[in-house]
């Protein structure tokens, strides 16, 4: 079973992403959520998700720090990290790259683009 982890402090965004990714649940993909970086790290160690959507501005530990932590203490299965943020500046993109993120999507985003990206990463085709 493949897993997607959504890390965002905003429950509405978590909810939105869960609903967007619903089609993948039908394809036997588990959707996990975490409201901050520390919880996220626990889940990553425990559940080994293939794909992580990571918000940047979060309390306790921001997205870049989570990213760095994953890269410095890699879990068994190295996840594909997509930074999903309202910060769309060039500098933020550079930071994301530097902290080891694989992809960068700015909010607000287009649903179809997001779905296409997920199927590409998980190699699961939607109907």
């Amino acid at each position, binding site marked *: 079973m493949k897993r997607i982890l959504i890390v965002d402090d905003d429950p*509405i*965004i978590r909810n*939105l992403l869960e*609903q967007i990714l619903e089609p993948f649940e039908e394809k036997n993909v588990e959707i996990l959520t975490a409201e901050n970086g520390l919880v996220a790290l626990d889940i990553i160690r425990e559940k080994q998700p293939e794909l992580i959507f990571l918000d940047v501005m979060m309390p306790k530990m921001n997205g870049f720090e989570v990213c760095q932590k994953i890269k410095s203490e890699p879990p068994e299965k190295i996840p594909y990290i997509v930074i999903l943020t309202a910060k769309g500046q*060039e*500098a933020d993109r550079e930071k994301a790259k530097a902290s080891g993120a694989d992809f960068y999507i700015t*909010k607000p985003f287009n649903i179809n683009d997001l779905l296409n990206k997920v199927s590409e990463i998980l190699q699961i085709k939607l109907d």
Partner: protein
Amino acid sequence: MSKLFKKTLLLIIILFMIIAFTIAISTGWNLYNDLLQEYKSKGTAIAKSVASSSIETLLNRDASTIQAMIDRFLEISGVSYIFVVDANGDIISHTFIPTIPDEISKIKNDKPRDTYVKEIVFEGLGTFIDITSPILEGIAGYVHVGMDKNNIMAQMKSAMIRQLILISLIFIFSITIAYILVNKVSQPLNALTDYAKKLTLHDFSSPVDIKSDDEIGLLANTMKSMATDLHEVFDRYEQAINDAIVELQNTLAYLTAVIDNMADGLLVTDTDGVITHVNPALSYMFNMRESDFIGRNCRSIFGDNFAEVVEKSRMNADQIFTTEIELAHKRIGKAVATGIHKETIQSDDKGIGAVILIRDITSEKEVDRMKTDFISTVSHELRTPLTSVRGFTEIIKKRLEEDIFPNVTNDNKRVLKSISRIRDNINIILSESERLTALINDVLDISKLEAGRIDWKLENVRPADAIEQAIIATSALFEQKKLLLIKDIEENLPEIICDKDRIIQVIINLLSNAVKFTDTGSVTCKAKKLDNSILVSVSDTGIGISETEKDHVFEKFRQAGDTLTDKPTGTGLGLSICKQIIEHYGGKIWVESELGKGSTFYFTLPLKNINDVSNINKMEYNYTEKE
């Protein structure tokens, strides 16, 4: 006494003295000779007379007779002594009183055959002329007559002194006469000279009292009238100069007051960048004394960057250069440098210095930073709810289209109408949220542009590539409105150095604007090379822009049409962003349009010196380049 007279007087005195002494000497000499001759002949006569008359007496050796005779002769002037010796050399009688001098013994034995004259010196008595005359050819003896030569000398001396005194008196008399005469001639000349001297010292009021009607008088009169004229002219000029000085002082005081009371710092440098003037505001800004600036090179105080800006402004008459500069107390100043150029601009004009105004922009920068931060924060905060709105709307739309609508029984007209409305409404929410996203992006963009927080990449860009990419990005819009796009791009356009993404952003903006305001017809995109730049134009056959609107289209939140009646379809920031980008590269952007017939937007990008231009702008926008 006139100098002329003094000079000649000295010469005359010398000459006179030579002449006077020559005359005196020659006179004395003549007198001496004459007297000597006279004494000799007198003595000879006396001697002969004594000799002839004393023969008998001598033979008789009648000494008393002889004595009486010689005593008689002694009374003749000049005769000092007479004595008679016999053939044996014994003195028979003499006139010596009281004793016969010793020197007589040397001559008493002389036995000349004829009358003989010789000089003898008696110690203590002087020189005498001794005339010896034989009596009876020496048989009876000899008569010696002594004439006093001292007498001759004394006479000669007194004669000479008399002569000298006389000549001197005559000379003094002549000199006095001459002096009076010369003075009479030179006095008016002297007076005139004094007058001329006073004139040279600008003393025109002194009187000159020369009334003679000769050349000197004429000269004096001419000088007087000249002095009067000069006086007038001088007075006039002096007045004019004084007026001008007062005016200049007033102007200077005014200007100094203006400069000293300016809130901005003022700095003036010469051709070498050496500081020649600062105002109190500048001293305060840098927390230094005025004397710390004057005479020093601005490079040594303000650094290389500042000095370069100053140098550039001096070299370019018609350009103003700006830079930011660190002030005292961690404040920031904006320096605006302008070259000082004389009005006679030559081809090799390099300027005679530069004026630099420095304004404390710390608070402006702070406000600017706060504004940008605020906009940045607000737009980030807006993005999150916008993400939800857009995301959920899309999900709702999907669910409706996939799960709800197909299962609605479609025989009810009202339900069908509702479905159609919901579909429209959801699409409106989606397009509006998209517009909101674009607006947030544009606001963020423009606030960053204005605050100079854009990272400008510098890369070689082929204009044709940039246009092509912009066309691809906007192709969907053209398809939607079924408009024709005509491309007219000159071949082999030179590359420009700029940020490709930014240029594409400009072209996309212009193309999408063209599509937005055009319902039928076509959009034409042209590009060609001008002398020093690339010209790109986008023309449409749309609604056009009125003359009054034309001036405002590049302003923020301005759009063609009335925003109160026409529903705006863009953010109103696109053209403002375009303008900022193009001007960043030293280019120009403008529009030509005719209402109802369409518009053409043009922009240029310079080919040369693009580095220079961007450097200047970097300073202006406080450009921070990434390490």
